[in-house]
């Protein structure tokens, strides 16, 4: 039973984290190759506060605020640079975060932070909280898609210049996407820290940023259910494939390449095509 609880908690945190990137990349079309930096900011904030004796539930909003502060900075950068330049800038932010954390002794340097205190909710309570937060963000994402904000995001993702001509305040909405997306990433970071009770700089590196991007892409960029399903499956895939542990990363990267090469719209796109074809056959 304990194993299933750990599994479900891991899944829920991954779903929350992947959907937070989906908000920025999927909804608003702003590519990010450094999203793990926000997970890390949240995790370090949560861990430091928890070790200082702050109650667990208060660390969540603090982690969100710290990550969103960094998110605003990257959002401002996204107003200066676009497309490929933005991809590389966000990648740079990821490396900068790692480089900073590694050299700071008060953040544990290379060794990271161990002995993060328990949440006080119990394993089942903590799992329920993670699932509730993930479900809430699924609902919120679905809701936003149907609001004015969702339509504006779609138009910016489609063509920023046309949106500007239409009189949309592109800068404001981009910043909004970054703030919401990174704040949620911060929350998932604090959850992550309390789940594993140990964090180190290596958990928030480039591979982590790419893994979460893989979840978004495999699920289908912008598709809430697709991304949630892909995150749930991909996050526990390594646990199920203990046997092929040595080939884990190879399988992961081959999946990423194969998906881009043969089905760039992700699982959601594949399903959509399948349904459309079936409809076309039965008149």
């Amino acid at each position, binding site marked *: 039973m304990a194993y299933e609880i750990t599994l479900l908690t891991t899944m829920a945190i991954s779903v929350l984290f992947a959907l937070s990137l989906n908000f920025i990349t999927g909804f608003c079309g702003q*590519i990010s190759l450094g999203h793990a930096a926000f997970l890390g900011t949240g995790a370090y904030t949560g861990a430091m506060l928890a070790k200082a004796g702050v109650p667990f539930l208060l660390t969540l909003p603090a982690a969100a605020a710290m990550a969103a502060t960094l998110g605003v900075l990257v959002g401002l*950068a996204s107003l*200066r*640079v676009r*497309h*490929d*330049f933005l*991809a*590389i*800038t966000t*990648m*740079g*932010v990821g*490396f*900068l975060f*790692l*480089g*900073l954390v*590694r*050299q700071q002794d008060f953040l544990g340097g290379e060794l990271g932070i161990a002995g993060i205190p328990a949440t006080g909710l119990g394993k089942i309570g903590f799992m329920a909280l993670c699932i509730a937060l993930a479900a809430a963000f699924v609902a919120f994402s679905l809701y936003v898609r149907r609001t004015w904000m969702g339509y504006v995001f779609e138009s910016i993702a489609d063509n920023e210049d046309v949106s500007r001509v239409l009189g949309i305040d592109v800068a404001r909405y981009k910043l909004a996407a970054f703030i919401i997306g990174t704040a949620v990433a911060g929350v998932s970071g604090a959850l992550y820290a309390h789940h594993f009770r140990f964090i180190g700089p290596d958990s928030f590196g*480039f*591979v982590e940023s*790419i893994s979460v*991007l*893989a979840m978004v*892409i495999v699920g289908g960029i912008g598709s809430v259910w697709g991304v949630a399903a892909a995150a749930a499956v991909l996050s526990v895939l390594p646990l199920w494939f203990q046997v092929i542990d*040595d*080939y884990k*990363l*190879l399988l*992961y*990267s*081959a*999946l*990423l*390449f*194969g*998906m*881009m*090469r043969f089905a*760039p719209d992700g699982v959601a796109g594949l399903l959509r095509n399948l349904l459309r074809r079936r409809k076309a056959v039965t008149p």
Partner: protein
Amino acid sequence: MLYLELFIQGIVQGSIYALIALGLTLVYGLLRILHVAHAALFTLGGYLGVIVTNATGSLAFAVVVAMVVVGLAGMGLYKLAYEPLLDRPPYIALIASIGLFIASEEIFRLIFGPYGLSYAEAPLQGQFELFAGFFLKHGEALAIVLSVVLLSGLAWLSTRTRTGIAWRATVSDPEMAEAFGVDIQKVRYLNFFIGSALAAAAGVLVALLNNLVEPTMGSVPSYKALAIIVLGGLGSIRGTLLAAMALGVIEAFGTIYLGHLLDRDAIAFAFLILVLMLRPQGLLGKAS
């Protein structure tokens, strides 16, 4: 004195960066793809350099073999991975490329083991006195000389030969070049061959300087080379050379003076972000 030493170290590192980043710029200029898997070809070059040198005892022969084989591998990579993705949004090719790159690291690890390979008898490890009290390793001198030779060769090719002119025409306007009878497909293959061969040369040089090749030797250069071509203004060859040298020198100084705050890789990206915020089009890029 220390300044001069750091500066020369920076130039050595910068010439290696230049060799890697040039191939990336060539690919970007022609196809608008951020070719992360370029670093896989760099690693392949390093491995071939060590293996062939150990088998034949000749470093020069190994450099040639590595450049030719990796050049052909680059052409294959284009055919297999990028050609079918050209009419997709650019991030698709970028992510496919990242997937390929991680896969290649894993393949190197599974085939050659996680601890890497070394030269049986490492060539060019001696050093000579460049000026009073400052010594340069033979390998480091080779890095500078080989870069200058290869880059001059590239400059000659692109300005003085028919092929080079067709190539530059394709970069500046593919449709117009095609209308004038340039075989675009041939240009793309040539582009990948040359870019990949340069990366292979860099791989052999890095293997020589560290006397080690390992599966992950490409990861830092791959991201740093991206930073360099973005700094240089994406697709600008002169910009890339300038950015590579600047980054080499800034890292050499930064590691000494900022080392307690940031590690070496973070310094490169701090510099990148700073430049991009001031000049979003890169050092020598044209404003769009």
